């Protein structure tokens, strides 16, 4: 199986898979414990508006998606802080409008026949080398920010009100988290497409949470699980000649159900393993 790594696109796919999985493990853990999965899904879909805009303006789609996703993330963040009771509705609207905007903008782009499917379901086999550098840069930035604000993120994720009282800048850190989520989501779109983003961001942390007793360890375990799922899915897709993004998600899905079944079985015997 190692001979496939002699192909440059395969090597890039493996590296992209590792970099994005590590990023997902860190950010995905915060997304899961802060219960902002819905916002993340909204960002992923609305980011398509940025892709459309990028094609119309003739700039890099990744750049367009990243910029647009950050703006959408900030709007959703401010809305969810202001109008708590209607936040889910407004996020749902932005989710759909962003996507519709992307489709129409691409229609309006002269002479372009964009492969919509590659954005919906990913194109991990077509990651150019320079994008690996973006991914490495983002991963480094996310890693440093989370290490720096670890105590603060832990406190606001566990008990937001208490964090406010002890003077943690909860709003700022929350918006920063959403920006990091937006950039991470754009990278994941490369791997598995915007429809499947949520699975890769939430399944590894969900499984990791059950076997860890600290947020940092949860992030590490989730990152490792993400790498395993991504590489296994990639390898299976090569072996069976199937769509890679969907295979990655199916591998994660199988692990998810296996873990849930393990819980149901283990609950009878009680006692849970922790690291």
């Amino acid at each position, binding site marked *: 199986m190692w001979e496939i790594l002699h192909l440059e696109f395969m090597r890039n796919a493996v590296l992209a898979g590792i970099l994005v999985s590590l990023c997902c493990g860190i950010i995905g853990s915060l997304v899961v414990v802060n219960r902002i999965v819905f916002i993340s899904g909204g960002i992923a879909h609305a980011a398509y508006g940025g892709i459309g805009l990028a094609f119309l303006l003739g700039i890099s789609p990744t750049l367009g998606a990243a910029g647009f996703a950050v703006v959408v993330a900030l709007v959703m963040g401010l809305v969810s802080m202001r109008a708590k009771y209607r936040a889910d509705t407004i996020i749902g609207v932005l989710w759909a409008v962003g996507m519709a905007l992307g489709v129409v903008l691409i229609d309006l782009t002269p002479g372009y026949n964009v492969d919509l499917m590659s954005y919906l379901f990913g194109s991990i086999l077509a990651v150019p080398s320079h994008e690996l550098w973006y991914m490495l840069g983002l991963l480094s930035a996310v890693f440093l920010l989370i290490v*720096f*604000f670890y105590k603060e993120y832990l406190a606001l994720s*566990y008990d937001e*009100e208490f964090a406010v*009282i*002890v003077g943690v800048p909860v709003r700022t850190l929350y918006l920063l988290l959403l920006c990091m989520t937006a950039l991470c989501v754009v990278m994941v779109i490369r791997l598995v497409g915007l429809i499947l983003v949520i699975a890769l961001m939430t399944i590894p942390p969900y499984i990791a*949470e059950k076997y860890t*007793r*600290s947020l940092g360890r949860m992030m590490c375990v989730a990152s490792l699980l993400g790498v395993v799922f991504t590489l296994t899915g990639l390898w299976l897709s090569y072996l069976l000649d199937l769509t890679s993004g969907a295979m990655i998600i199916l591998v994660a899905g199988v692990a998810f159900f296996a873990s849930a079944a393990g819980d149901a079985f283990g609950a009878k015997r009680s006692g849970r393993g922790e690291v």
Partner: protein
Amino acid sequence: MKTMPDTIRAGPQPLDKPLAVELKGVWFSYERTPVLTDVSLSLRQGDFLGIIGPNGGGKTTLLKIMLGLLKPDRGSVRILGDTPLEARHRVGYVPQTTSLNISFPVSALEIALMGRLSLARPGRPYSRRDRDKVEELLRRVGMWELRDRAVGTLSGGQRQRVLIARALATDPEILFLDEPATGVDREFETDLFRLLEDLNQEATIVVITHDIGVISRSVRSVACVNRRLIFHEGGQITKEMIDMAYACPVDLVAHGLPHRVLEHHDEG
């Protein structure tokens, strides 16, 4: 059934003590539903206030206004002479445990350390002093041996002890507690109020509780909240309060009321 306490705790603090909490004409509503109407309250430092009232009567809202987590629509709030925002680093807060995620991957020690965040800086680990302080507090509440346990593996009473240690780690001059006796065993409940009486020697205590039986032995003052607020320095639960808060007497009936509370006011 609870027996009458042997000694009755001293009444309210002398009038020369500065005010810990001062609310004047506070109104608050969620969307359009009024929750608090024209609430006023003056509490002196060193007092031990029990807040009772029916569910949905506005007890937690009142507490969150005092903590500065909610802004009243009208009226003024002073905590230790400052605005709630300015006084934040001088208060401690023990929220209802039911509002927190039990499966969260965090240890008892990490939770207690959060109380030191107001002194810690981002990007740096907690200092030796922070850790020593938290160790002392976790020992005081009897949780030091269990410090590395995940919060989800602790019992309700153990979680409550950790949250009290966390609140005390802020070195509070006023300690606010929201239903600290919910989901804990009877034995811990007695320990809890003994601990609070002990803490009351250094700090003002404001505690929401549904259990009048336990509260009446420890508190110096009582307020009943049900959209309006009735306040009594001296710990008496008046007939007026009972009439207003008639949803709470489930506990009144269940545990019996220490005599001293009612006898002065029975004539109503």
